[in-house]
């Protein structure tokens, strides 16, 4: 008997049992089900949620691969800064990739293993199918954490994020906050000393602290927040040869992913564009404040306020947040008009938090979480506009 037939028989066997969702999750991974339409339309379009989610994962793969090389590159470059003199020659080396394999892959495996484990348990307990939301979350999480995040911390955060961020609301499609960012926020607020500073961004920097071999890798934002300058060129910042969370450093690859998501019509171009617009607007305002001498170089805000608005767009997690986080359709605004407002405010508030938050010079995840909370409010007012038009139409008619 063929695999197809065997699996079909097993499906019949598990039907109605507690284990059915778990089995179906694996079965439907291998084979698209033999379900046919009942009532309603007799034909259906080719897209399902798995395909949709898969597109997001594909768009993330370049960032993941780059992040693996960058993990090694930042490590060796911290030990021997002369490596930075010739980035291209010293970047795509096997040594760099190896660090990525031993440091980044475990993050991916733990993220998926723990997260999907929780998903399966909930599916079995609650008797619903295992839903695809975590396929994307599980890939996002390793890309937005610092390289030296201990695996146990990640596990705890993932469990928290999946349970509190998603399952308590009823699973995929019901959550208010972006689960990946809930996980990131949990890590930041539960282990703040570990998650900030200049050590966690480069492999082994934490272990070597205090020894003669000590290395450090401050992020660009971290340096600017301390009114310091960096040696990274615009080229480094745009293509991502800088320290940062695993997969968010390369603005170039993120934009490539954005192009793919927009072309496939999976990601909302409205949110992506408006987030960048919002960030640029806030950046320009700060630039004007500096230009008007309201803030001088003695101010602790001077470093980030004087950063050119276009540079704000390529440092830190802004691009990654705009393309992969803000666009999560479940937690974003759901109306087209609302998406413009939602995205713009994310960008705007991101840069504001970035400049004014003394403890941690990155505001993107906080801004997105904040706007996640306000997205239903934005939608409410957009939809009320439609309702009002309808009432007005009725009134004109009777008048």
């Amino acid at each position: 008997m063929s695999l197809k037939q065997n699996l079909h028989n097993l499906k019949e066997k598990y039907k109605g049992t507690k284990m059915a969702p778990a089995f179906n999750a694996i079965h439907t991974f291998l084979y698209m089900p033999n379900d046919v339409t009942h009532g309603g339309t007799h034909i259906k379009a080719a897209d399902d949620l798995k395909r949709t989610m898969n597109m997001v994962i594909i768009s993330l793969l370049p960032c993941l691969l780059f992040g693996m090389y960058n993990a090694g590159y930042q490590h060796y470059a911290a030990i021997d800064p002369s490596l930075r003199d010739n980035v291209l020659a010293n970047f795509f080396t096997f040594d760099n990739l190896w660090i990525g394999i031993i440091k980044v892959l475990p993050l991916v495996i733990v993220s998926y293993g723990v997260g999907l484990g929780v998903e399966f348990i909930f599916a079995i307990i609650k008797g619903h199918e295992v839903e695809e939301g975590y396929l994307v979350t599980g890939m996002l999480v390793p890309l937005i954490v610092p390289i030296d995040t201990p695996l146990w911390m990640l596990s705890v955060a993932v469990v928290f994020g999946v349970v509190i961020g998603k399952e308590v609301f009823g699973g995929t499609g019901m959550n208010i906050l972006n689960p990946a960012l809930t996980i990131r926020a949990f890590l930041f607020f539960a282990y703040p000393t570990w998650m900030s500073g200049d050590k966690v961004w480069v492999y082994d920097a934490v272990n070597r602290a205090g020894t003669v071999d000590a290395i450090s890798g401050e992020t660009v934002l971290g340096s600017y927040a301390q009114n310091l300058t960096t040696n990274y060129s615009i080229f480094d910042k745009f293509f991502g040869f800088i320290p940062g969370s695993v997969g968010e450093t390369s603005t170039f690859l993120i934009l490539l992913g954005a192009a793919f998501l927009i072309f496939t019509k999976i990601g909302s171009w409205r949110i992506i564009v408006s987030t960048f617009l919002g960030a640029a607007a806030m950046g320009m305002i700060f630039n004007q404040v500096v230009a008007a001498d309201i803030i001088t170089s003695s101010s602790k805000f001077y470093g980030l306020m004087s950063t050119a608005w276009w540079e704000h767009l390529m440092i830190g997690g802004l691009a990654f947040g705009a393309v992969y986080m803000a666009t999560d359709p479940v937690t974003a605004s759901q109306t087209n008009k609302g998406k413009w407002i939602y995205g713009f405010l994310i960008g705007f508030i991101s840069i504001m938090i970035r400049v004014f938050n003394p403890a941690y010079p990155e505001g993107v995840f906080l801004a997105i979480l904040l706007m996640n909370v306000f997205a239903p409010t934005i939608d409410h007012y957009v939809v009320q506009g439609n309702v009002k038009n309808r009432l007005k139409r009725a009134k004109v008619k009777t008048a």
Partner: protein
Amino acid sequence: MSKDIRIKKGLDIKLVGVAEKTTTQSSLSSVYAIKPEDFHGITPKLIAREGAKVKAGEALFYSKSDERILFPSPVSGTVTEVIRGERRKVLTVKIAADAQQDFKDFGVKDASKMTGEEVKNHLFAAGCWPFIKQRPYDVVANPNQTPKAIFISAYASAPLAADLEYTLAGKEVELQAAISAISKLTAGKVHVSVGANSNSPLAKLSGIELHKVSGPHPSGNVGTQIAKIDPINKGEVVWVVAPQDLVIIGELLLTGKFNATRIVALTGSKFAKPQYVAAIIGASVASFTKGNLNTDNTRIISGNVLSGIKIKETGFLRYYDNQITAIPEGDDYEFFGWNKPVFDKVSTTRAFTFSWLNPNKKYDLTTNTNGEHRAFVVTGSYEQVFPLDIYPMQLLKAFMYKDLDEMEALGGYEVAPEDFALTEFICVSKQPHQKIIREGLDLMRQELG
């Protein structure tokens, strides 16, 4: 004067099996069946018991809510069987047709000399009232209300839909008689929509407001046209008649006979020769598809692939349909079907789905759902195929959590299930939109009237 309607949002689903423009006459089927469930919201009260002799046009049952609304037998013959379901609900009335058809005579009428009340009573008596449906709620019209306008869509944009220009050709006299009659039922206008470049027999009628429609499906849906011409506000009612039913009304007025024959399109890839056939309402599908239809693993649909109803091989042509579609069932697994590139299915995305490369290709789609039912996740996709000024997902959700205030405010009065057929087709979460809308409308009708 014609007012054009141009739709941009929508989707033409091009399928294999367009009916060729030849019409065969079907021989008289031995058994005809009328199903009260075709008249949504009607509770039937049986008149013709088993064994009763009926003429074509004689009532089989009436509506419990208004006993003037009669439902006629399409043929003359003997009621052989009344199939009942739970709580003795009438499911099907079967009539064995006489070899020699005998029509009940309702008398020749001149519509131009009749008052609205006389037209109404005549339509009641001859069993033609059920052809008039109303919005809101998409049910048989309530004769106690006065519609602000009557809408007739003579432009069919649904997949493989019968070409009304072809099926109604030569029926100008009947159509004009029917229009003259039903225009007495409203103080407002009778809006007729035809295709932009069509030579429709309805275009030349008098006493109508003509609209030329262009754009992708659902431009031919009467709901779309109502929304663009004269949207329904709270407390308003419009009536809707299908053009093929106008022909029957017209013939009734001109000859005094209820002749339920219409031209039916046989469409879909499972027909050896997709074409047109003249058949009577309620005819057994086998009687006019035999030898043409491949029934091996086939989904037979009375109506189109988006809003039609699944019927058995031994099923019957439904009361309002002028199309039978037959497509392959899709009850097979597809290895890695969720991530491999797809060339043979329709999609509005480009997620490794390539129907955007070749917009004119005709597809042989199956009934596979292409994925499992999920909660709503993706946003913004419905709006691309939904031309009404309504937020489709917000309305669907309101219909699901049954908040009557929101259902009303978001546009519940303006929609019919078929308006949500395209959003259901493209739905990534495979939600049953039309069912949600139908149930919501029933609730609104029950609670708000």
